[in-house]
């Protein structure tokens, strides 16, 4: 593996509330290599988006990074002053949000928004920036970019707007793009197009992607590696084929078993009983144990740490036991 573009170690995000501190992201570590696509999956509230916001330094107060570090190209960025972090946002880390209908400012022409982004990060003139903006719009597949650059967001459809949002995220050629549920708000027929577009553009530019979604299908198609999050922690992380085809963590197994297929002989869809705990009621030990069919006595007491199995890392006492039992 090449040198990681992004390296997250022991990241912890807390929200102080009147009833105590809520831990939204609890001690997670992962790397994203140059040009790699890391999928991050999990249920709502698992801490996926919060991880993305922490990386780009946009956690809404009173939330805060309470521990760990985030490194971009080896340089620590989680403790930078606001102004320095601002120069990294957009320039070196781009971000795509879920809802293209609300991501664009309705009062500005899309061209102005792109030009503004380009000029915030590079010393180019109005004309040159506009030329770049037209090229970018062409790149993201907007027909007649020359004419449409002066349109307002409401003159575009949802899919088109998400293309514009992608153009904006890539405007300053960042090394990493965080795509937070980029297709969730779109029609199913458009979703695949947008994902393909994002994947192609990032491959062409060598941009690494952190793709946050709850759609395993999107992950399987797009990601190189995948991190499965549960209750603020990473349950399993590894190459997408390994995780999809031979998951180790019981939660991952449940997740994979719950994906419908068109195979006539497929068994009934699996379901995981219960629901993910709320942030103020995360159980002791392994957070998944109340829902886990195979939980051991130990799972009630001790929190499992990620341990390597093959090319993956899994945080589960079952597999840790299996590894130990196999005498490795």
């Amino acid at each position, binding site marked *: 593996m090449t040198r990681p573009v992004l390296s997250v170690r022991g990241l912890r995000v807390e929200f102080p509330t009147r009833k105590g501190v809520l831990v939204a992201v609890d001690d997670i570590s992962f790397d994203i290599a140059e040009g790699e696509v890391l999928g991050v999956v999990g249920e709502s509230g698992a801490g996926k988006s919060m991880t993305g916001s922490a990386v780009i330094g946009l956690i809404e107060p009173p939330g805060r990074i309470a521990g760990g570090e985030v490194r971009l190209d080896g340089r620590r960025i989680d403790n930078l002053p606001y102004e320095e972090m*601002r120069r990294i946002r*957009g*320039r070196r880390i781009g971000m795509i*949000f879920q*809802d293209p209908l*609300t991501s*664009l*400012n309705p009062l500005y022409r899309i061209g102005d928004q792109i030009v503004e982004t380009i000029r915030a990060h590079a010393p180019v003139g109005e004309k040159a920036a506009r030329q770049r903006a037209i090229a970018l719009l062409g790149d993201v597949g907007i027909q007649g970019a020359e004419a449409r650059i002066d349109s*307002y967001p409401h003159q575009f459809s949802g899919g088109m707007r998400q293309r514009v949002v992608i153009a904006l995220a890539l405007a300053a050629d960042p090394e990493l793009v965080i795509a937070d549920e980029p297709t969730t708000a779109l029609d199913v027929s458009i979703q695949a197009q947008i994902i393909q577009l994002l994947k192609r553009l990032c491959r062409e530019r060598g941009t690494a992607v952190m793709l946050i979604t709850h759609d395993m299908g999107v992950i399987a198609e797009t990601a190189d590696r995948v991190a499965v999050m549960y209750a603020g922690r990473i349950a399993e992380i590894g190459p997408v084929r390994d995780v999809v085809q031979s998951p180790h963590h019981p939660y991952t197994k449940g997740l994979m078993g719950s994906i419908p297929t068109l195979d006539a002989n497929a068994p009934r869809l699996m379901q995981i009983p219960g629901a993910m705990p709320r942030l103020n009621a995360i159980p002791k030990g392994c957070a998944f144990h109340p829902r886990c069919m195979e939980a051991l006595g130990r799972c009630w007491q001790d929190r499992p740490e990620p341990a390597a199995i093959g090319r993956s890392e899994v945080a589960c006492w079952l597999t840790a036991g299996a590894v130990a039992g196999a005498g490795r």
Partner: protein
Amino acid sequence: MLAFAIRRVIEAAVVMLTVALLAFVLFRFVGDPVNQMVGQDTPLEDRIRIRQELGLDDPVPVQLGRFLWGAVRFDFGISYQVKQPVAALIAERFPATIELALAAAVFAVVLGIPMGVYTGIHRDSWLSKIFLTISLIGISLPTFLIGILLIYLFAVKLGVLPSFGRGEVVAIGFWRTGLLTASGLKALILPAITLGLFQMTLVTRLVRSEMLEVLRTDYIRFARARGLASRAIHFGHALKNTLVPVITIIGLQVGALIAFAIITETVFQWPGMGLLFIQSVQNADIPVMAAYLMMVALLFVLINFIVDLLYVAVDPRIRILGGAS
């Protein structure tokens, strides 16, 4: 756009006609103006002669027609009290009120918007709390009291600003302005602050609540994620999105400033339309009252029209809607 303009002109005509009818009704029900004009021992023949001269013994439809025809040409007859054409009286007073109202509006906007933006961005800073306290005072103190307090402080105690009048004026055509002389400008300060303080607090609070709303939106988060400078985010992206409701309120308030500057004009003896109106009420000078009513209605109609045009300038989505309808 053309359909929009035509519709607005028709609406405006209906409003003005309604107000004209109301103004005309004033003539019929506020007693006999002749009694106000003549002495107690004026003989009956003289009274009848005056009534005929004023056309008050014509049938009602004829009088109405004459009033409307006059109103269209800005001819509102002769003031019963000062025996001068009403239009001339108003034209003489009009610049004073407009200058006062505009100065108050500028004061309210120029201070109110930055204060609103600041308190919206820095919710918990001590400066925000000071601003909000000032705005609370501005909302809760009645206008005349603010005026009197300002006079007491700046005119009586410190003696730096005049307590009444307009100072020297310079005539530009029919428009007599106080904006070009030092004494005129000095005389404008206290009345403008008195009149504008309430509007300023209104603008501050409105901009603040709108800013709080807008700063939570996705496009502001996205603007941050794109690495734009705070200034561009706050004043470019956020402020512009707060402007539609702010323009509405400011527009209506400018109308209110012009129409209801009466109290401020009375406190400062400002020779504007408000003072003229108060005097005309005291003397049952109906032509002046009617003309004032028409004037104020016309101003509101015009301001509303301008506000609608400003919407279109600020928000491109309204442009499309207007074009489609």
